[in-house]
């Protein structure tokens, strides 16, 4: 992976036409939007080179409860290793469906999803856990076990995939140091603040060092100050080479960080933009 932007940009634009199939007029307004904001120099935006780690190929998802209103409608996009991506959209726009399909909680009705060259639509059920070991997941409601300590909560993720006690003893304190909770190993989740709980949940998601980290509204329950801390943490994780996908409502965060933004609106992909902004109702 190289940081030479001058070489990367044309290549990316050339690919734009095919891979990111967002409607042209919408992209125009979006680029005008980002032109109105100060251009930030972000040096470490990774190159979209090599083969994509995630490919959505004309993916449509229709839930049986709402047969006339697809949750996702003909989505095609590609995500490359090392990218930091915001997935934005209103409630019900299909963000959560997008993420649930990525970890194969649900299968697409039409189209194909490829993660690391493997087709999720034809993947055998017994292989799904091995897919999920390569995708860390963080949720708005933390999903921590209340009767376990911070250390045990993070260790649990390694325990249940059969890691040895030695690996757990070395890896868990290390990852907790990374998220800044090295002093709270023996606290229980209800003794922690919301931000700290989310850090524990991030630690649990990355303790197995997955190449992809998916966050569904990680800052939805947190105040702006704490949210910034969480985003800094996600950015640091991204810098270690982990691909990070964040579904969020947090306008300020998206506008400040100027990373790739994928916007969904009622199941349609309306915008896919590098160094983008939140962009709704402006």
């Amino acid at each position, binding site marked *: 992976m190289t940081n030479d932007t001058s070489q990367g940009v044309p290549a990316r634009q050339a690919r734009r036409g095919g891979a990111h199939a967002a409607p042209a007029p919408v992209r125009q307004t979006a680029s005008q939007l980002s032109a109105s904001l100060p251009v930030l120099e972000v040096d470490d935006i990774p190159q979209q080179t090599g083969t994509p780690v995630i490919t959505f190929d004309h993916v449509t998802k229709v839930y049986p409860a709402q047969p006339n209103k697809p949750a996702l409608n003909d989505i095609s996009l590609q995500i490359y290793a090392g990218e930091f991506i915001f997935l934005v959209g209103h409630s019900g726009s299909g963000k959560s469906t997008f993420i649930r399909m990525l970890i194969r909680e649900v299968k697409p009705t039409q189209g194909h999803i490829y993660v690391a060259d493997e087709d999720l639509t034809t993947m055998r059920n017994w292989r799904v*856990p091995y897919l*999920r070991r390569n995708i860390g997941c963080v949720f708005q409601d933390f999903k921590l076990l209340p009767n376990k300590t911070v250390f045990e909560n993070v260790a649990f993720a390694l325990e249940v995939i*059969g890691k040895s006690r030695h690996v757990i003893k070395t890896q868990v304190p290390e990852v907790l140091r990374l998220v800044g909770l090295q002093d709270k190993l023996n606290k229980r989740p209800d003794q922690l603040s919301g931000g700290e709980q989310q850090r524990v949940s991030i630690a649990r998601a990355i303790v197995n060092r997955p190449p992809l980290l998916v966050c569904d509204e990680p800052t939805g329950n947190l105040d702006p100050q704490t949210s910034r801390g969480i985003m800094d943490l996600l950015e640091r994780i991204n810098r270690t080479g982990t691909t990070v996908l964040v579904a969020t409502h947090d306008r300020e965060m998206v506008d400040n960080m100027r990373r790739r933004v994928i916007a969904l609106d009622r199941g349609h992909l309306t915008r896919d933009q590098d160094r983008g902004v939140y962009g709704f109702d402006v």
Partner: protein
Amino acid sequence: MSSFAYFIRESLKGFTRNLSTTLGSIVTIFLSLMIIGVFLVGGLVIENVVSGVENEVSIAAYVADDASQADIDKVEDYVRGLEGVASVTFTDKEQALENFRSSNTTDIIDALDGQNPLPASINVELSDPQLVEQVAGAIWDNSTYQQIRDGETKSESLKYGQQTVEKLFTLTNYVRYIGIALIALLIFIAMVFINNTIRLAILARRKEIAIMRLVGASNGFIRGPFLMEGALHALIGSLLAVGVLELLRNTALPKLQGALPFLSFDVSLNMFLLIYAALVVAGLLIGLLGSALAMRRYLKV
């Protein structure tokens, strides 16, 4: 191997989590397996009796009190000439009473007041039990026997083992049907109990399960503790049943043999061990199947 220890640890937690339902499923498994065991042992005893009767099939041809010795000798000679007959003996009235006295309590004989209602009989031992119908028919068709017979019909005059065997068979058939119905019902109840216990265990751990799925625990790893819990309950239940049956074998069976001397309770230890093994295996199957059913319905992996 470490995950096996984890399964055991997690399944043991089920005891403290839902003590009442856990005990419920253990007790139902215990009861159903014990009843199955009792029926199996009972079946073996009946089998013993039936085969005993079959092996010593003999025909008793009752003879009227006023029959002359010449006629009796004639019939005896005739019967000796039949195919499949091993020996022919004559039992007179006095002897019949003596035989009756030896196998029954003296009260009945005292109540007879010195009278003797028992008929004399020609006893035919057969070398081949298969020929019993044929020999009995031949005796009945003999014209001399027709004159000295005691009783109006063939079944009144001629008693032979086959009838006892048939009676036993109808009896054992009824017992068998009732037993099978009872066992099926009990197994069903045991499965429902296990199903319910495992369902509660799954509900109690649904948060953990959600996280396990999220971080990529394999399906076997998620299911393991629940299968183990079902199997553990079944194992405890079946071991209890085996223990009680062993206790019954050592205490109740000799007493029962003493009270019912005409039945043979002589079932070999090997047979018992076989029954015990079958019970434990059946219990494990019930437990695993019950928890598998619960997981199918309540545990999405």
